[in-house]
Structures are given as structure tokens and as C-alpha cells.
């Protein structure tokens, strides 16, 4: 066998080892040129072909082709290896401690009272009620007189009032919104509203009293409304607010603007065993309600012989306190961010 062929065969062994040692892509290119380039070893050998006989030529052709293929395969493999290595290096370099805390992206929190109002309003909206609102600085007429609470009525003691003048006051309940809505409707349209809002009473602020608090009232006025409708509505709301397993009970009470009047209790989470929250009774008082007093209907332009209605009112703070186990009403108005953000 001619030396030329032998050299190439020898080259085969050399190439595999050489290429596998290469670490840089550039070097790989150099190597390719060295073997396969126009002036590369193989090209050089082929130029010498004429010096061989016919079978030598054939043999050289075969060997050099094989070698070329081999070199190409080796180069390609090595290139892939180098690329992989590069990526691996990059990955290694970019590896991070995934346990470090993420960048803080804060969303704000709606005030828990607002959330409570929204939830309740949502429930009533689904039942077809519309939100109505009214001023907080009210006429005595709307806050008391038209609600069957004439001057010097003993029940006014139940609501100690901030007066501005003799006729103007800070509303002590959201009920004047009922009055305004009825008057607006001229006594001939059904009403189905909920009225959330701030109210004020002369109470010293302590864990259970606040001179400012939020109420939500509901009112239906229509031709055929009954106590059973009121009971059904409250039952529905209590279950949606406090859980499907909850029951309500109505107890007689007194509000000048409703007759009959009731207090509404819902079963306590303790399941009736008795606990501190329900004061061992198994029931928690959640709201006051009743059938709209005929005097109120009359004062607000509705004929009590034709129209009837029911109304209910609940304290938002109380509901939120029950729902979240908050023990001091002042928390709602201090706005400690540690308090606010618990309701996010």
C-alpha cells in the first residue's frame, strides 16, 4: 500500500482523538480547514493521486471519502458537545437560589367594612334590590318625625343624637333614605332597595361602641308583602351570609317605624352548645326588622290600606366582628395597616 493511503488511514485514528480534545468552536473550524480545507491534508493527498496505479487510485478515493465522512461526523459531534457545554455553563452561571423571596408586588386591600357591605349588597342585588343612598347630615323630619318618632318619644332615647341645629342632625340610622325613596316615588311605585351608609350616635368610643358606624337597611314596599316574606328574605340572607346550615329565629322587639318589629338571631357556630360569642344561648343577634308602620307609609305618601312593606337594618361592624372574630370596634377606624392587610 502506498504511503499516501497509509497516511490517510493513520490520519483517521489521529483525527478522532484530536477533535475530541477541542474545546473552542474557532479551533474546530481551524481543524476542519486543516483536514478538509482546500489546502488540507486530504486535498493534499488527492492531489498526489496521479502517482498511484489504478487500484491505488480507487483505494485512495475510498479511504479519503471514508475519512472525510468520519472527520465531518467527528467535527459535528464535537461542535454539538461544545455548544452543549456552553449552554451548560450559562445555565450554571444563571442558577439562582429559588428560595429567596420574590419581588414584592402589593395589591391594596379594600377596607373590611367596605368588603362586608359589598358582600351583603351583592346578595341583595342578586335578589333584585337596588342601592339607594342619602345624605348623612339630615333633617330631623326625615330622621325621626316621618319615621313615627315624634319629639319627646321615649324611643328617641334609644338613639342619642348629634344635633347641628334644632332641625338638622347627623342621621342616627340609614332609615331616612327609606323616607326619601318613598317620597320620591309619590306613593304609587313598588320599592326594593338596600341603603348602606354611615350613621352617628352620641356614644363614647369603646370596644363595643363607636360614635360613627355603618348600617345597611333594606326596604320593600308593595301591595302584597307579608311577615312571611320578611322571614323568608332574612332566612335567605342569613344562610348566604353565614352558611347554608344556619337557621334564623325571630323574636318580638320594638322599633317605632315598624309594626310588628322583630330582632333576628342566627344559629351560632358552636351549634347550639353555647359559647362565649352567643353568651351560652346558641343564637346570635344579627339584625332588627319589621313591617313598615302604617304611620310611616302615610307620612311618606303611601296609602297603608293599599301598600305594605317590610324593612330591616343591620350593623356592618357587628357583622364583620362576628364573621372575622374582631373584638374591638375601634380597629375599624384606627386603620393600623397590620389590621387592614389581614383582609386582603
Amino acid at each position, binding site marked *: 500500500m502506498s504511503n499516501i493511503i497509509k497516511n490517510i488511514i493513520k490520519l483517521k485514528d489521529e483525527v478522532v482523538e484530536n477533535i475530541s480534545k477541542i474545546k473552542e468552536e474557532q479551533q474546530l473550524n481551524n481543524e476542519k480547514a486543516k483536514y478538509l480545507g482546500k489546502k488540507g491534508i486530504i486535498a493534499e493527498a488527492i492531489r498526489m493521486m496521479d502517482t498511484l496505479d489504478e487500484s491505488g487510485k480507487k483505494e485512495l478515493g475510498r479511504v479519503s471519502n471514508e475519512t472525510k465522512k468520519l472527520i465531518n461526523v467527528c467535527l459535528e459531534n464535537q461542535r454539538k458537545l461544545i455548544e452543549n457545554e456552553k449552554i451548560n455553563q450559562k445555565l450554571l452561571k444563571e442558577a439562582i437560589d429559588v428560595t429567596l423571596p420574590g419581588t414584592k408586588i*402589593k395589591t391594596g386591600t379594600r*377596607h373590611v367594612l367596605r368588603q362586608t357591605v359589598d358582600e351583603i349588597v351583592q346578595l341583595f342585588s342578586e335578589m333584585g334590590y*337596588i342601592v339607594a343612598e342619602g345624605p348623612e347630615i339630615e333633617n330631623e323630619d326625615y330622621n325621626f318625625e316621618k319615621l313615627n318618632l315624634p319629639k319627646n318619644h321615649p324611643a328617641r332615647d334609644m338613639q342619642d343624637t348629634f344635633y347641628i341645629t334644632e332641625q338638622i342632625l347627623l342621621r342616627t340610622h340609614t332609615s331616612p333614605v327609606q323616607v326619601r325613596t318613598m317620597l320620591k316615588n309619590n306613593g304609587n311605585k313598588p*320599592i326594593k332597595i338596600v341603603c348602606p351608609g354611615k350613621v352617628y350616635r352620641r356614644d363614647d368610643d369603646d370596644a363595643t361602641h363607636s360614635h360613627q358606624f355603618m348600617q345597611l337597611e333594606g326596604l320593600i314596599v*308593595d301591595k302584597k308583602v*307579608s311577615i312571611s316574606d320578611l322571614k323568608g328574605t332574612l332566612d335567605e340572607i342569613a344562610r348566604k351570609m353565614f352558611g347554608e346550615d344556619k337557621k334564623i*329565629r325571630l323574636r318580638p322587639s320594638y322599633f317605632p317605624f315598624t309594626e310588628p318589629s322583630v330582632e333576628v338571631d342566627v344559629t351560632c357556630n358552636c351549634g347550639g352548645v353555647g359559647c362565649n360569642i352567643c353568651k351560652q344561648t346558641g343564637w346570635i343577634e344579627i339584625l332588627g326588622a319589621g313591617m313598615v308602620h*302604617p304611620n310611616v307609609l302615610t307620612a311618606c305618601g303611601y296609602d297603608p290600606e293599599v301598600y305594605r312593606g317590610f324593612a330591616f337594618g343591620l350593623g356592618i361592624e357587628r357583622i364583620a366582628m362576628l364573621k372575622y372574630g374582631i373584638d374591638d370596634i375601634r380597629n375599624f377606624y384606627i386603620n393600623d395597616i397590620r389590621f387592614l392587610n389581614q383582609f386582603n
Partner: protein
Amino acid sequence: MKVSKNWLQEFLKIEINMKDLAKQFSLKSQEVSSVEKLTDATKIVVGKIISKEKHPNADKLNVCQVDVGETLQIVCGAKNVEVGQKVIVALVGAVLPGNFKIKKAKLRSVESNGMICSLVELGIDKKCCYSEGIEVLPDYFEIGKNPLELLGLIDEVMELDLTPNRPDLMSMIGVAYETKAILNIEAIYLPEPKFKEIKEKIDLEIKIDTINCSNYYAKMIKNVKIGESPNWLKAKLIASGVRPINNVVDISNYVMLELGQPLHTFDYDKIGSKEIVIRQATEGEEITTLDGIKRNLLISDVVITNGEKPIAIAGVMGGLTTAVDDSTKTILLESAMFDQVSVRITSKRLELRSDASVRFEKGIDVQITNFALNRATQLLQELAGGEVVKGTEFIENNNFSGEEIKIDLNYINEYIGCKLTVEEIENIFDLLSFDYQTTDNLFKVFVPTRRRGVSVRQDLIEEIVRIYGYDKVPITLPKTQIREEISLNTYKKNFIGKLMTGLGLDEVITYSLVNEKNIYDFTLQKENYVIVSKPMSLDKAVMRHTPLNGIIKSIKYNLARKNNDLRFFEIGHKYTEGEPLILSGTLTGVIDKTLWKKTYEEIDFYYVKGLIETVLKKDKKKFSFVKPEKTNENFHPGQTAYIYQEEQLVGFIAKLHPKYQFENSLKDTFIFELFLDKLFEDIEQIKFKKLQKYPVVERDLAIVIDRDIEASCVADLIEKTGKPLLLKLEIFDIYQGENIPENKKSIAFKLIFGDKEKTLDSEIVSQKIEVIVKEIKKRLNGKLRD
């Protein structure tokens, strides 16, 4: 109202269980605040003091030998202990209220085998006990017996929380009627009072000179012997929370508790005349009341006079000069009806709320007045040995006999939503002891005068439904349907609230009442404000003009607790005419600080402006931010912007003045406000705009301009000139310093041009830029930066 079981039981035919009664009361009548034993002391006996010696080692203690069946040595500290007394002894092993266990003990090395007790120590309310020290028992009490039983103090008390419409329950007789109705049991009522009268006729003239007294009855009882009341009477008073004083006073209290009619007893000999005139007080008139306090009267007060001077304030309190005392012989007993409102006004003004005034205020049974007078007369004869002078002197202007209410079965069932029968309803009226006539399905109901709250059909329905039981009322839903849109204000509150929390701000709710001196702390104008009359404190005296007062207070509260990064907003009202809705907010500290990353954004003016711009985008109108020439002194004059929508002021952003921040221990603090009543008035339906189809051309443009020209001025001009090809403009650099003249600055804009119809020729863009530059030169004297 405290209800004694022993007393109530006297009106009922069967033994009741107070816990059951309380439960039924709360479900069918009135709230029950407690049911408790009057005293739950155990192992208590009657003892007799055989001897008393000074304690060898303690000045204030005595060593007593007490006979309780055997002789016990007991150390006693009471001042009033004397040999021969019968006393209450708690034996070793007794448990007194408060889980106080009596043990064999050595008191300063002297053995003591029990305790001699006062009533207070047995759990009787202190205000009902008239003996300061140990209770001294009557001599006839048998040694070794249970003294509580002998005193009538083994009792249970149910306390009712009464609503204003049930004054009838401020009497035992009323509670008895109610018990009968809710337990469906039989009751026994009081027989007509009986007493003997002497021949002497009452010599008294009564005159009523006011509309505030309708009925007045008086009786005279001679030769009364003032003394202690019998134990049964005292026990009832104690159980009712009333302190026994003497037989005459106790009887009038007893009858008031029994029948609900307040009575008054005058010492007749001290009246000084033979007439009683009831009239309005005159201006400047005075009276010293039983409590020894001199009261100045007003024309609105009603007084009982002897024809000349006031001797009592009607329905509120008697006068000192005619008070019954130990030497009283002749009593003038008064039972009257005074006007509810009048008594209420007077007692409220004088801050004199007595058991009597409270009953007058709520309203008493007009038909009980004379009955009560006779009942008290009977007791005075029986218990104080009095001789009843013949006749009753009275004036009766009100002889109301009760409401008649007609109500139809259908109406009842429709109103309640149930299907009661005539018989069921009649049964309820029977339970309530209401008389009625039934004609077909129509009831005519005669409401007794004791139930003065029941005056219309709805009141009657309440009576029916509560006795029937709310638990039996079916559950239905109203069919009412209305069609109305939600109000704009509700809509604004909702979407602004969601937007603000989405932007990372926390919502607060603060008080509307603020200190008058802070009213203008953060306002742009000084408008009139609303002042509360008689405020509870200076800090809650006027209605705020901005929630910022409260928000800043909350910020300070949080800073004091090392919560430094705060972004608060409140949607609330400004309490001026119309109570306009406003959005207020305060930001301080840094945003989303991730400590280990060491990069974070400090809140600055532009951050706040960015927030506001995001909110205002919803309005679709164009807003301008203008630096005011003069502003609130608490605002930083260089970092305040008023926000205008055309000519209308719609809000502001301000950094608080460094001086204000320093004085209030605040760090850099930014406040903002949007007047929501002037914004988002018509939120339009969003209309889709076609996306830019052809490629856009981007050009940068740096303009050198006088330093005091505001960026918005240049931007507006470019925008105006660049239209319609200029699609977007953004400032990307502000520079002043090297290569720029002293009083100039460079503003660099990124401009994006595009044509909706075709690919834009870059030549056209260049021409447009030239026009813009020319315009800037002409109008603002600016030029391209080299």
C-alpha cells in the same frame, strides 16, 4: 324590670319554672337579660349571740359565742354585733356568693367556726340593704332555722329588658297577664282593695291648673305608725331591687311595683294648707327635693303646690318640706296621671330619673290610678295602723276606657302570610285577656287600657303573631320586582375602589367628625363647615371637608408603630352642601421594597401623578396639571399641582410642606384628592379603534428651551402641530448642565408617526419634524439640540 318568682307566683295558679318562663319571654315577649337566684348562699342558720368579748390581738374584732343549736365561737368584725341579737350565721362548709367558702380558721390566733353575715355578704344587692353591718334578725326567728327562708329571700329573679312600647310590664300585674298569655296558664288577679273608713270626712280641695295632669286622686290616712315593714314586703322590694326604708315609703313603692302606678305620700301636717293645686311652675320658682338638692324650676315643669308654694315636682320627686319622717302622723296619699312628655322633659333636664318618672314617661294605665290609691290605703291600714279618712278627693278628666280595633281575618292572614282560623285568633285574644266580639270573620277587639301601645290593627297583628309564634310563620319570598339602574355614585365608588386597590393602595375609613382647628388643614378653599352642637370632645366637633384629616391621623398612628411605607385612600364625603363624593389619598415611604434586592422606588410627585393619571384615563376627557400661584400653607409650593378638566378644578396632588411634615413627625408625604362629583359623569361605551396596519416611523427630537417653560407646554405644541400623523409622544430625557446654556434645559421626545392608509414616507416625516421645530422656535423660542 326585675321579676320575683315568689311575687309572680302569687298571681298564678300553677308553679312555674323561671328558666322556661324566661325562654318563652324572650321568644314571645321581651328580652330577658338574666335569671338568677336572689342569693345562692348555702349552710346558713339563725344564731343567737350569747357573749361578746374583745379580741385579745385585734382592736376591731370581737370574739362571740353563738348559739346555733350548739355553741360556736365566731370572730366577728362588724361594729353592730351585740349580745342577745339573733343573727345570720354561715357555718363551716357554707359557700357564699363569689365561691367564698367558710372554713374553720384562726383569726389572729383565735379560733373561729363560721361567719356572722350581712345581707350583702349573702349576695343581696348593696343598694337594697339598709343595714350597714351584720343583719339583725327578729327575735322570734328560731335558732338553727334557715334565715333566708324566714326572711322570704329564697327567690329567683328574672330581669326583663323592656322596650318602650311595653310600660305595662313595669308592674307585677302586667307581668302576670303576660305570663298567662305566653305560658297559656290561668292567672289570679287582685281583689278590690278593702279598708275601713272613719267618720271624719276628707277636708281638702284639689285644683288642676294645667293640661299636663289629667287625673288626681287623694286620700288621707290619720294616725299612722311609721316603722319597719314586714319581712314579706321587704323581701319583695329587695327582689325587685328597691331598698326598704319604712312602712309608708315601702307601701307606696310596693304598690308601684305591683300595679305600675307611682304614688306619692305627703306629711299632711307639713303641707300648711287645705288645698292642692297642680300647675305649671313659674319662672324662677324653686323647690328642694327629697334628696336635699335645691332645684330651679322652669315654666315647662309641672308642680304640686299647697296653693302657694311647690311641694313636689309632679311625677318626678317630692319636696323635702312635706316629706314623711318618723314623726309623721297624717298622710296625704296621691295617685295621679301626669303627662308623659312633660314628665320626660322635666326629669331629663333635672337628670332625675326615678322609678316613678320612668313609669310616667312610658305611660301608665289610666284605669289603675284609683285602684292603686285604694290598694295603698288598704296596706297603710293593715301595716301602718292608719285610720282612713272618709272619701276620696279627686279630679278625673281622663276616663279613657280603651281602644276598639276592628280587624278582619283575611287581613290578619295576608299580613302575616299564614292561615289562622277564627278559633285560633279568638284563643289568642283570650290568652291576652283582650275582650272581643266576632261577627263572621270580623273581630272587634276591646284593648285593655293597660296595653296602651296597642292602638292600630298592626299592633294587634303583632300581638297575634308573637303569641302564635314567629317560629310557625311560613317562609316565602316577596314577588316585588323593580327596574332601575344602579346610581352613578354607587358605580363610581365601586370602580374607583377596585382601581385604587389594584394600584396597590389600601382603603381606610376614618371619622367624619374632626377638630375645628384642623378643618382647613388640607383644603383648597375655606368653605363654611357644619358644627355639632354640644360636641362630645373637641376632636369630634365639626364635619370634615376632606377625609385627609383622618387619613393623616392614621398615617401618624402607623408611623408611630414603625409601619413606614403607607399608601392609603378613602372614598368619602365632603360635608358641604350636597355632600359631594371625593377620593383622597396619602402616600409615604417606598414602594414594594424587597430588601435583599436593594432596589426600590421612593414615592415622589410623579409616582402619585402616575396613579392619578391612571384613574383619570377612565374619564376619557383631557386633564391639565397646573402649578397654582398660591396654595394651602401646609402644601409644598413647588410640588403642588391642581388638576383641571377644562376650566373646572377637579382635584390636586401635593407634597406636604416640610414644615408641616416636621411638626407632625412625618417623612416625605404626598396627598391627593379627586372631586368625584365632577368626574366620570358620563362613562362612554368603549369603541374599538382599528389597529395601525402600516409600519410606524420613530424619531427622537431633543429641544433646548428656557428652563422655566413647563414640559407640558412643549408637548402640547408638538402634539398639536404633529397631528394627525403623530400617533404618540413620550418624554424620555430631561437634561440641564454641560453643553446647555445656563438658563436652558433640554427635553428629549420620542415621536411615533404613522399613516392609517399607507406606509409612511420618511421624507414626509422629516418635513413634519421641520414644521414642528419651526413652530417651537416661533412660539417658545426653542431650538433643536446640537
